[in-house]
């Protein structure tokens, strides 16, 4: 697991030290002289990669080729950062890789590289460096030969420009870093939620069915002892045990449904939501309008969202009627639950709605509640649509 603290802390901007003919200056000179060959190579690479990729982008291979070129440009950036670190004492954080959706196909990968701001900035860097490389090479050479006394000043001035360019164009992208941080925190929420769910299941099993089965075993044990001497008492105990076991069965059934309802896997959202709706204390009209079934995980989240919202309607809304609508718009799955109850639901108070908002947020979803005092209440949730993989169709 990578945490942010693993990355080197932003080091002091530069360790340039005093002006003069020290080792630092000679390193800077090497940097300036090596600018020409390095920038020449970088320029040729990015020009060819971008030009060929862009020119061929009307064909099938164009965009993947451009993506490959951009991925290579990141390599150029890495070499340049290493050179700046070694010779100029400038430490730049390595940018994170562009995030990829898990399970996404090759097209997804190409697309995410094409939108990679870090790679594009490196391309720009490659373009502007060639003229600069020629200039620094020439000026440094001349200074070495004829402008000896001015050499430290010239070198410092030019390497400062170098430092600015490396920092400005080869650093990590704020947008990307923000996204990575967000994903890291989302992953944390998902892990926490899963852990909390497991604890809840364990507790329910322990307090519910397990306790009942113990009581049942005890009752039957007693009945066995009594059977010979007091058959009537034994029959009564068996009777009690019979009732106990039926309750245990019901508890287990409810628990299993809470983990994952079988009908959701077998028949999809429409059937599963009708079943939830029928358990609501008020009449619910369910309309599911989906062209196909979404990925299992998406179905699960949609199911639990509606389930939670209808439970709220049952408990708090004092409604006469509720509606559930599920539909797809572009690459989003939308869920809307409305009721004609007393309103005043506040997602910032109460753990139910806040928990729901947090869970949806963790999967890149959105959750909005509109509930003026006196009602009606409309809760809208939005999820990224993920299609079923071929194996599950």
């Amino acid at each position, binding site marked *: 697991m990578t945490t942010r603290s693993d990355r080197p802390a932003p080091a002091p901007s530069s360790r340039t030290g005093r002006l003069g003919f020290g080792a630092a200056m000679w390193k800077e000179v090497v940097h300036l002289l090596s600018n020409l060959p390095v920038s020449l190579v970088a320029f040729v690479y990015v020009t060819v990669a971008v030009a060929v990729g862009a020119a061929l982008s009307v064909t099938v291979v164009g965009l993947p080729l451009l993506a490959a070129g951009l991925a290579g440009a990141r390599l150029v950036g890495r070499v340049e950062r290493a050179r700046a670190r070694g010779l100029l004492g400038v430490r730049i954080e390595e940018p994170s890789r562009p995030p990829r959706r898990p399970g996404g196909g090759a097209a997804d990968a190409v697309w995410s590289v094409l939108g990679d701001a870090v790679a594009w900035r490196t391309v720009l860097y490659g373009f502007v460096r060639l003229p600069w490389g020629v200039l620094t090479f020439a000026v440094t050479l001349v200074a070495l030969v004829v402008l000896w006394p001015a050499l430290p000043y010239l070198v410092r001035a030019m390497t400062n420009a170098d430092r600015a360019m490396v920092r400005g164009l080869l650093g990590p992208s704020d947008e990307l870093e923000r996204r990575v941080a967000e994903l890291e925190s989302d992953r944390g929420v998902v892990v926490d939620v899963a852990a909390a769910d497991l604890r809840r299941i364990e507790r329910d099993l322990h307090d519910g069915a397990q306790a009942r089965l113990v009581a049942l075993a005890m009752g039957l044990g007693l009945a066995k002892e009594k059977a010979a001497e007091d058959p009537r008492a034994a029959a009564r105990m068996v009777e009690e045990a*019979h009732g106990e*076991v*039926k309750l245990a*069965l*019901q508890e287990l*059934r409810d628990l*299993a*449904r809470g983990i994952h*309802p*079988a*009908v959701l*896997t*077998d*028949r999809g959202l429409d*059937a599963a939501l*009708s*079943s939830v*709706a*029928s*358990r*609501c204390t008020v*009449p*619910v*009209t*369910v309309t599911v309008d989906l062209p196909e079934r979404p990925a299992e995980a998406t179905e699960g989240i949609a199911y639990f969202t509606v389930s939670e919202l209808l439970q709220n309607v049952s408990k708090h809304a004092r409604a006469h009627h509720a509606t559930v609508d599920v539909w797809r718009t572009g690459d989003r799955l939308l869920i809307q639950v409305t009721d004609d109850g007393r309103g005043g639901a506040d997602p910032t108070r109460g753990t139910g709605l806040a928990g729901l908002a947090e869970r949806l947020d963790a999967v890149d979803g959105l959750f909005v509640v509109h509930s003026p005092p006196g009602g009606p209440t409309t809760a809208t949730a939005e999820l990224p649509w993920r299609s079923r993989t071929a194996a599950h169709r």
Partner: protein
Amino acid sequence: MRVVIAEDSVLLREGLTRLLTDRGHEVVAGVGDADALLKTVDALAADGAAPDVVVADVRMPPSHTDEGVRAAVRLRGDHPGVGVLVLSQYVEERYATELLAGSSRGVGYLLKDRVAEVREFVDAVVRVARGGTALDPEVVAQLLGRSRRQDVLAGLTPREREVLGLMAEGRTNSAIARQLVVSDGAVEKHVSNIFLKLGLSPSEGDHRRVLAVLTYLNS
């Protein structure tokens, strides 16, 4: 009564066999998956010895999803004379609707837990074998709950609602009378009141009555 049992858990299959044999019924075959069930019933029917009723679990190998429901729907098409009772760990109104599509003759859908009430369970098996209906009270509650005719249902007295539920489960008037500890005549009066309030024409046979009620609730 001749019974075929399809249930993948050997423990439950043995239990059901013992329970039914104990009550004087004959279990002619016990199988562990839907394919074997269809083949067995086909073979028995080909010999002119079709079973009276099939008791099938919903979840069976290979996919452990809804094989039992699909097999039951096929059996009902291929062998209309064979009653089919589907048992499940969960009951869902959607499966009930699929099972009942077209006819409520000789079909049942019950929670597995109901086997705990041995007498009622065996009664249900016999009812289905004779062409009747056995719907789990939980399915009926779901149907009543999600019906869009709430305004009309609200017009029923609590007793009438109770009778409507028992009717939808597939019970006869005399069975309802026994359950509610009232006279047959009283039940008949409730039934005709219900049909009047729902605007249904009183149906002849018990299983037609079930279908009328279910269609009404589902519309």
